[in-house]
């Protein structure tokens, strides 16, 4: 049995191809698989369609020119509401966009996971989500009510990137955050799932209570990457909070001449091990308190 799915980030990301549709788990500046995103930044990958409840993952991929098209409901870093590199990409017309309501987005992931072409919803009617997207269609209920719905198309993903609290080499995962958002739906919507994990186990052996933290089945997972601190600088409950100091620095780089290139040289090109050292290592992560909302 080839049940050892452990790979290096480089090996895992090498499965991706130019032009692929890639889903990125998490929500805004929370639970983002940033170590995998940094690996993409170092790779020659291009022309990606990125599907994300967007945060700095989207901003960095836009800054690096990796994004051909963005499928999204928002891009924000919460404490810093406006994502600077997303804005630059959007305002210069550098990326195509397909914009959905947050709930429609969920519906699209669900449809893909259920192998449906669409799911009906009222959401999006009478808005420019419908008007600006000529590919988005409505459908009339075949029942007596005759109501008109949006036919939210499946958001089928070639690959999904997720960061989890614990995983074993077989791809059994534990998601321990207070809210783990829609990561389970990304896993179902994708042909190929790459999971990065804070803690890697040989094989999980769980009590019933802990087993409930397993949000999706291991048959959905193709690659497991051991990446402690892999969500930094985003919030990764309960292990560490977001690194506001780092996010501010990243945000500021967008206002400086050659700022992105400097950020890349300092934090991306050095590789993940050096990145973790640069940001202050496990000691720094331990000091990043979970924010109070």
């Amino acid at each position, binding site marked *: 049995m080839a049940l050892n799915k452990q790979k290096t980030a480089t090996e895992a990301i090498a499965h991706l191809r130019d032009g692929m549709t890639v889903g990125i788990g998490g*929500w805004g500046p929370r639970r983002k698989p940033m170590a995998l995103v940094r690996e993409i930044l170092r790779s020659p990958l291009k022309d990606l369609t990125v599907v994300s409840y*967007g945060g700095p993952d989207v901003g960095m991929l836009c800054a690096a020119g990796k994004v051909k098209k963005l499928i*999204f*409901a*928002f*891009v*924000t870093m919460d404490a810093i*509401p*406006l994502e600077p590199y*997303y*804005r630059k990409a*959007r*305002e*210069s*017309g550098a990326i195509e*966009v397909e*914009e*959905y*309501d*947050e*709930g*429609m987005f*969920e519906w699209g992931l669900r449809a893909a996971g259920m192998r449906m072409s669409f799911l009906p*919803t*009222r*959401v*999006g*009617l*009478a*808005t*420019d*989500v419908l*008007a*600006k997207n000529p590919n988005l269609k409505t459908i*009339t209920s075949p029942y007596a009510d*005759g*109501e*008109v719905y949006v036919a939210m198309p499946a958001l089928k993903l070639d690959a999904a990137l997720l960061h989890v609290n614990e995983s074993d080499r077989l791809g059994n995962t534990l998601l321990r955050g*207070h*809210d*783990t*958002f*829609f990561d389970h739906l990304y896993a179902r919507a994708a042909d190929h799932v790459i999971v990065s994990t804070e803690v890697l186990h040989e094989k999980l052996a769980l009590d019933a209570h802990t087993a409930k933290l397993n949000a999706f089945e291991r048959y959905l997972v193709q690659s497991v990457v051991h990446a402690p601190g892999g969500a930094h600088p985003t919030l990764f409950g309960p292990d560490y909070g977001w690194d506001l100091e780092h996010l501010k620095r990243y945000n500021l780089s967008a206002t400086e001449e050659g700022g992105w290139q400097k950020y890349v040289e300092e934090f991306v090109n050095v590789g993940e091990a050096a990145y973790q050292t640069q940001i202050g290592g496990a000691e720094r992560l331990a000091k990043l308190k979970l924010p*109070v*909302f």
Partner: protein
Amino acid sequence: MTTATLAELMIVAASEAWRDNGELLASGITTIPRLGASLAKMTHSPELLMTNSEAYLVAEPVPLGPLGDYVPQYEGYLGFERVFDCVWGGKRHAMIGPTQIDRWGQTNLSAVGPDYKKPKSAVLGVRGLPGNSICHPNSFFVPNHGPRVFVAGEVDMVSGVGYKPERWLPGMKQDYVDLRLIVTDLCVLDFGGPDHAIRVRSLHPGVSFEQVQAATGFPLLQADDLSETPLPTEEQLAIIRKLDPHNLRSAVLKNNPPAVGARG
């Protein structure tokens, strides 16, 4: 003479949005709406449900900012996936601050400028506005009442639906659209005019209707019982101070003006 600030007056005005709503989720997004919802739950509407703004339902509103010794009292769970279930079922009343609002109550949080493909200003995205607006009651908060927010024509990217007839084609169910209040730094508006036209319902102390009209890109109506927005009572102020011990409300409006006497 009251010592209340304009922000505090707006919190009290915002809290009125949740009066007599029954048992539903009260979502006030950002400082003043959240304090408004919290004040509603602490005073006239204890039946409201609220979260800690993360993933848990709380028995009493959580104060803003660092909690110190305060321990949140959880009474249930409401992660984002369940919030969407709640939205679609209609048991929620949200108050958010859109970038633009038009005469039909349509809102924009996505992109400003005539060219959607290359906007003058990319904001956040439509977020949950399409779903909120077509599923459950909504109110709005505007800290800077002016013609850039209350636009003359249609908003640039209709994110939240409103009452513009041309947007509603046969078979589209408009029954759940329910726009309630707009609380601004000048006044409180509602959708009580003919065909849901926007009316001024109360003016903040020292503000005239003409002043509000001049700051709005479309014609406004006056409510028959147009009144002055009530000042916070001492009891309300005491609760607000408890809910906002670090005085985050003082940073919302420029120069934190007083409720009375700021207008020239």
